[in-house]
């Protein structure tokens, strides 16, 4: 009895394991990116800010001599400035990219919405190049479709 239950449990788990593979639909999701350039820069900026805060604190606690404090502060500030400008650059690029993507998407939508009249002859299949009421090839009447 117990052996049968253990066996059933293993089978149940096997179904649980393969279930994601059997899910309906063919559109398979891909694994998302863990770290983007943007978040990485933000994180590095946080680290430098934290370093500056620590430095200020250690200076006030008299752990760091004034000359060391000055040099280190300058180094960290420069580092932070670089990271900020890099972030801005990434932001600018991503804003531009987002703008382009938005434009492209909007155009696609507009295109879909636009009525494109079709002058292909339903009888002989000739694609009439101009808007006409009768087919230029076989003379059949064209029922213009939207």
């Amino acid at each position, binding site marked *: 009895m117990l052996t049968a239950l253990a066996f059933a449990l293993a089978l149940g788990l096997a179904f649980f394991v393969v279930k994601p*593979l059997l899910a309906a639909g063919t559109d398979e999701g891909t694994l998302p990116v863990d770290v983007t350039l943007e978040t990485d820069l933000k994180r590095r900026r946080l*680290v430098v800010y934290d370093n500056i805060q620590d430095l200020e604190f250690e200076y006030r606690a008299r752990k760091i001599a004034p000359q060391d404090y000055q040099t280190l502060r300058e180094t960290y500030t420069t580092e932070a400035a670089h990271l900020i400008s890099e972030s801005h650059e990434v932001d600018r690029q991503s804003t531009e990219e987002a703008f382009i993507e938005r434009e492209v998407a909007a155009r696609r939508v507009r295109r879909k919405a636009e009525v494109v009249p079709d002058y292909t002859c339903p009888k002989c299949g000739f694609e009439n190049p101009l808007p006409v009421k009768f087919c230029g090839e076989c003379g059949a009447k064209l029922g213009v479709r939207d």
Partner: protein
Amino acid sequence: MNQVGSIGVIAALAFGLYAVIAGVLGGRLRSLRITKSAERATLAFFVMVTLAVAALEYLILTDSFGSAYVASHSNRALPFYYKLPVLWSGQEGSLLFWTWLLSIYSALVVLMNRRRNRQLMPYVISILMGTGVFFSSLVLFVANPFTEVAIAGAGGALKSFTPPDGNGLNPALQYPSMVIHPPMLYLGYVGMVVPFAFAMAALITRQLGDNWIRTTRRWTMVPWMFLGFGIVLGGNWAYEVLGWGGYWAWDPVENASLLPWLAGTAFLHSVMIQEKRGMLKVWNIVLVIATFFLSIFGTFLTRSGIVSSVHAFAQSNIGPFFAVFLGIIVLFSVTLLFLRLDFLKSENQLDSVVSRESGFLFNNWVLLAAVFAVLWGTIFPIISKAIENQTVTVGAPFFNRFMIPIGLVLLFLTGAGPLLAWRKTSFQSIRQNFTIPLAAAVVATAVLYALRVRGFYVSMTVLLTAFVAVATIGEFYKGARTRQQTLHENFAQAVFNLTMRNTRRYGGYVIHLAIVILFVGFLGQAFKSETKGLMAEGDLMHVKDYTLRCESFGTGDTPNYEYERASLSVIRDGRALGLMEPEQRFYTASQQATSHVAIRTSPREDLYVVLAGQDPDSKKAIIQVFINPLVMWVWVGGVVFVLGTLLALVPSRVEREMAELRRQHEEALEIQNLDAEG
């Protein structure tokens, strides 16, 4: 029930294999669906190994002596609380236990990374489950705990047989700290697979920023804490059970647990340089590989019986399998590391030799030197056997000659490191920070000389413990004073807020204080003394300022063992301190004897009394008395070590900000996914 256990192991092995393949495929194809399936297989692996463990525990607790494992390692009279550890007392059970702990860690990794580290996870799963497949294969094919006792019947055919009672648990294991010591060590050994898996996944996916480092910091600290605490508990067991008056003998299996702990300590320090400065990227990967390798090597030494040790309860044929597995680990990880060297370039250079970074780096070298010294001494018997066909065992003097100086250098760095600034430290800063701790060290040494205590190592230990203690406490004091001045908090509030602002740093300082306390305990070893004598009822023994009077010496029995017991009343300075009752026990089922030491602990010293047996001529009790100064501080140090690590695990303000950033990123990803699906 044996069948249920077998189904558990077979199914676990199948799920493990599936997870390895699905993980690789999911990672290669970047498929969410296959990765999800691999994650589910990891959870299924956990469920099935748990079933196998439950089946074995059931067999143990119900005294099912038809099971070969239960018959060899348990008996009816064994108290309930000693039946639980039967699971890990033998080879087969302990390998199953190892697999179970791995399955728990793996399931936790899956559950905690459902929304993060998505690109790393498929490969993390493959590596975790690759290890799982190795261990579950060992359990299934080499050391199976689910076999039945069989005897030859008529015509030589084997038939199952249920003996009336079992052989019993090794008496040395029938001790309270033995119930938790092995699980602690195992949790330490097994847990080191997680940082290794993340490091390898980062190498495979070329995501070699510090994302994997930040993810694995806690996953390294937890097993590191278990390993450290397990080592101290092991020392406590050796001290209270083995009856030789000490707690550390450089036994190969003790060393095996120390090795990954030392490598892990180096890793936990050097990751800070990568996080702060983007340096030592290759080095950190090497340390993760070394830590994992040494963990498996430790398990190998403990379980294979390849070197003789007090843990000789594991002698078997699993050695070659472990050797192959260790070879695969090295080959796989080192090849991968070489292939990815271009992605591991340092973002910065070392600015100055006198800086926090170089302090950490030096600490790493010394820790690695310690690893090599201990490793060399531990495997020397194997090497000598292979080369000269003669086993040469390296004893405590070898280890002490190397490890005492190395330990003292590490102790110095424990205090000096935090006093150095990142990037570079000028002479003025050094003078500012080092003056008071150095003054304390000089005063402590002067007091020692005034007390006529001599000896180079003793003086150095006192000098350095004073230096480190004052330097570390000074960090709390200076920080709290600064908060008081700027934020107008009271002192206690200031210490609390200071600690909570950066739990990692101040938790680390608490661990440094634990190391100081441990060294105070070690210092006592230089002053221990030993006396031996024969005693009958009414006899007195004088040891230092203690007087021991033998009140009785007799025998008795319990269902589990027979014993000889001496009752000794202890008097110091004319004041009765109570009764001490050392025993010699003879366990009926296993037919083995063990001593049960009587210890009177105080902060100053331990009075440690062993009943070594009965003198055959005089029929008197052979009493051995040790005065072990300061031993209590070793156990106190162990507890403070755990508390410090727990404190360092609490998320600090900076980490909370980082977590918020990550949460925002995850939310953005989810919106993107929804958009894509919509």
